[in-house]
């Protein structure tokens, strides 16, 4: 069957997919923000790996990824910079196709690879959804109402295109699979050779981008703190353990049955306490990013239940101000502590220095 299909030119096969594909591609394009909207033709051309589409595609991915990263770009950013950024961002999000990284830096080729990357981005960091959410028109704020009209309308059309796209998604993914098929057919032999060559490239782990530096720095700091904490805890624990053992040895009552029941209860309660702690630690991730809509809500949610389903859906993403306040208080306390520690450090060092000052005595406040 495969052979028979190969006899037909690819384009014909395309058309056999039916009218849904252009609609799907069109909807997809329309669902993208206006600043980065490709022509459906670009995707088509990319599917056949036409070099003319490469520059457009690089630009498209560049703009989209910049938006996701909350970064700024200008029209005049050079193609080299665009290519570099796109490659880095795709790496960052975990796109691991080596062929992409090997694409030429002047953006002259690789539209098919880019198409694959684009489709991957649709799924993996949820490109469309993120863009829609990020570029959401702020209806509560200071935009002048006129342009708000336009913004709202364009956003609504985007959303409707998104819905349309959702309907037509399967067609698109099948189409992408054919792209993969083609690449599989063509590229197998030469790719493996290249891969072997490439892997010899960077044996050393020295980071080559500031992001990695920053991350490594954070990791170092974190591990230092954790290690310090661990030592401190270790000390405390051994102390207390020793003391406890003494007590157990000396005091008869602790060895009786009665205490073991209390001991068990204590154990359970401690476990609960610790579990609460660790879950708190874990839950911090999803917090406090981005804009929130302020909602005045009384402390008694019961009155809202009349709205039924609506409320339950709304309640999902809601965060109460009291929690945030608590969070912030905790954070404030810890920051204060950190600041005091730093100052203490300075004091130590300066005291040391003060001893070297001749003829002068330093009296700290």
């Amino acid at each position, binding site marked *: 069957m495969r052979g028979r299909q190969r006899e037909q030119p690819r384009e014909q096969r395309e058309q056999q997919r039916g009218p849904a594909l252009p609609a799907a591609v069109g909807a997809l394009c329309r669902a993208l923000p206006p600043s980065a909207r490709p022509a459906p033709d670009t995707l088509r051309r990319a599917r056949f790996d036409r070099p003319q589409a490469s520059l457009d595609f690089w630009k498209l991915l560049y703009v989209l990824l910049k938006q996701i990263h909350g970064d700024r770009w200008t029209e005049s950013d050079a193609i080299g910079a665009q290519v570099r950024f796109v490659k880095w961002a795709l790496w960052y999000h975990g796109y691991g196709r080596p062929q992409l990284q090997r694409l030429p830096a002047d953006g002259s080729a690789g539209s098919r690879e880019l198409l694959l990357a684009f489709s991957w981005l649709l799924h993996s960091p949820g490109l469309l959804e993120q863009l829609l959410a990020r570029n959401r028109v702020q209806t509560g704020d200071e935009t002048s109402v006129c342009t708000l009209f336009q913004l709202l309308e364009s956003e609504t059309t985007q959303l409707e295109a998104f819905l349309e796209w959702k309907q037509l998604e399967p067609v698109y993914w099948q189409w992408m699979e054919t792209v993969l098929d083609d690449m599989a057919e063509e590229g197998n032999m030469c790719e493996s050779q290249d891969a072997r060559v490439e892997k010899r490239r960077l044996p050393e782990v020295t980071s080559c981008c500031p992001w990695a530096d920053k991350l490594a720095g954070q990791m170092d700091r974190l591990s230092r703190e954790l290690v310090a904490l661990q030592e401190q805890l270790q000390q405390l624990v051994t102390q207390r353990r020793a003391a406890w053992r003494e007590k157990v040895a000396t005091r008869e009552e602790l060895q009786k049955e009665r205490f073991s029941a209390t001991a068990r209860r204590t154990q359970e309660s401690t476990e609960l306490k610790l579990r609460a702690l660790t879950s708190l630690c874990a839950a911090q991730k999803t917090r406090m990013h981005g804009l929130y809509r302020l909602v005045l809500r*009384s402390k008694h949610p019961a009155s809202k239940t009349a709205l039924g389903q609506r409320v339950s859906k709304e309640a999902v993403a809601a965060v109460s101000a009291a929690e945030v306040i608590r969070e912030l208080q905790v954070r404030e306390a810890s920051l204060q502590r950190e600041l005091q520690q730093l100052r203490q450090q300075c004091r130590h060092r300066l005291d040391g220095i003060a001893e070297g000052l001749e003829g002068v005595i330093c009296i700290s406040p």
Partner: protein
Amino acid sequence: MQERSNTSGCGTGPRRPSPLSGGREEREAPKAAEGRAASPGPAGHPRHSDHRDASARRPRRRGAAGPRGRPERRRPGAAPASAARATPRPRVLAGPRGARGRREERRGRGRADAACGPRPKVRGRGQGPAGPRRVPRGADRAGPCRAAAALRAALGEGAERRRELERRAARSRALLRRWDDEEEERPQPQSGSSTEHEDRPSPKELEELELLNRALEKALKVRESILKTSLEAQRARGQKWAGEAHAPKKAEEQQVPVPVEDVPEYRKVRTGSKKPLLLKKPSPYQLRAPYRTDPDVKKLQRKVPARCVSQGPRTAGKIFSKAVTSKQGRSHRTATGATAREVCAAAEPQETPGLSESAPNEQQSFYGGDSAAGKNSTVAGKQLLDAGKKSCGFLGESSKKEDTAGARGRSASPGTGTLQEKGCQMKLPVPYRKAYSRNSRAWERCRLCRTSADAAAARTRFMERIQTTFEFCSPKLTPSPAEIEEELRGLQDVPSRLRQYVESEPADPSTLQEEYESLLTLEGLRTTVSQCLQKLQLLREALESQLRLCPDCTGDVGSCSPACVPARGQTCDSADMLAVPLLCYSSLQELRDLFALKLQVSMLHQEIALQKVMMAELLPVLEPRPLLEGSAGLFRAIHSQLCEGGRRFPVLVRDELLD
């Protein structure tokens, strides 16, 4: 000279052509709080050392600067090169108050900085708690500029934030006052937004214009008699759509006899952070073809100021002023090329009753100011007045307005009285409401829409296939860099939280049970810490293996991370992303506390960052011993800055016994 090259720590990537090609825009990098000093490129240093030669410097510092090359990317604790530079002149020891001493230092450093080149551009926008944590890129520059740049950036951010807050506060205050006062004040806050109105009409001018309007009305009446038949049709129409406002686009389609409503008049009311409630109701009016293209009308109105008329109710004048100011506010100039969209009626129909009370013969004088598109205004005719009255009744606020209008002799704006009183009755203009409801429905649908089963299946198939071609075939084993970062972010708070717990454990438990409990808790915490360490180790390994594939990049990539990075494995649920997160508060006090805390936290971040930077710069100044005689004052200044936050200072007492 800008040392941009040093921030691109990449050893293998293409370097910038020369360190001189600076001017790259500063982007706020979420730098670690200590402001990592990337090593300066070797090209940059020779210049510095030239400058350094000029003043007395510690020789050993200078030597260290040269061979420092690229491989040293991690911050070495202090940039000795910068330290040498950072020595302020001995004058610094003047200040008895730490604050002054600090300023002196800064100035001194600033001078040094001047020698080192143009200041880095820093984006001084205030941000949320995460913002000030970032010491801007400029501060990263090894060299004397770092602390100066950091301080300057902090100052800039603070000033910017304050300006922003003041602006907002002023706006909110303007909104919250009684709206009759608003007319006077409106022109000021709005002057920023209006570009085409050259001056704010004084009350006298307004009255004059009022007279002019009346004159024009008479002219209109003359015309009306000509177009009588069409007017009747319009009257009928007027009754129908009293209170409605059609979409602006219809204006374009209109032909001569067909009256079309234009976009309703509304003021630009700046909303605060709450939901928009505040715009006026639409006022319908007719569009008259003959006047649309008549430029003379405009010119006449401009010539008004000559005459001085003091009669006429002040209300009319006020209406006018409102109209004018609201015209100012309206940014129609940027409207969708609906040049045919014109504004006829400016005033609020609600005022009709008030008007009719105070001046029975008073026609509603509608005058719309010009907007940049040079739209004409037409003067209303009888039909307009009728329509206005009807719409007035429709809008239903007339009764209230009448009271206040009568009482104060002023015409009622949609909200005489405070925003608080009237706000809940206000409604937004209809086209906006339509667009808004359509938009929010679309959002709802999008949020609720689920990926169909075949779509999900097709997508997964594609994903699996493509993932087999990846370097790391199994995403579970090797998280993506984005995921690594996310995990790390989650771990950041752990040490401080655990430390809290540790500290909250009683040092001397009273009962045996307490002692046992405390023991168990501590042991549990210890386990948690080792788990975290293990996790950290895994993350580090993952990062290293990912970095093997890291593409060549120079400094201009990858400085910001996306705010939301879902794990690779799971499908991004549309609902989660598309729902706008809500922050529920139950009282104003909560909000106040919240924002105060936010500010406090971000200030602390900033302080810590600055502290670290200054530690790195100032301490090395004092370290080499023996210190010179004159540095006692320097020592005091540094001590007060670093240890007391510049608030108190140590006392230095000369040790007389030595003599």
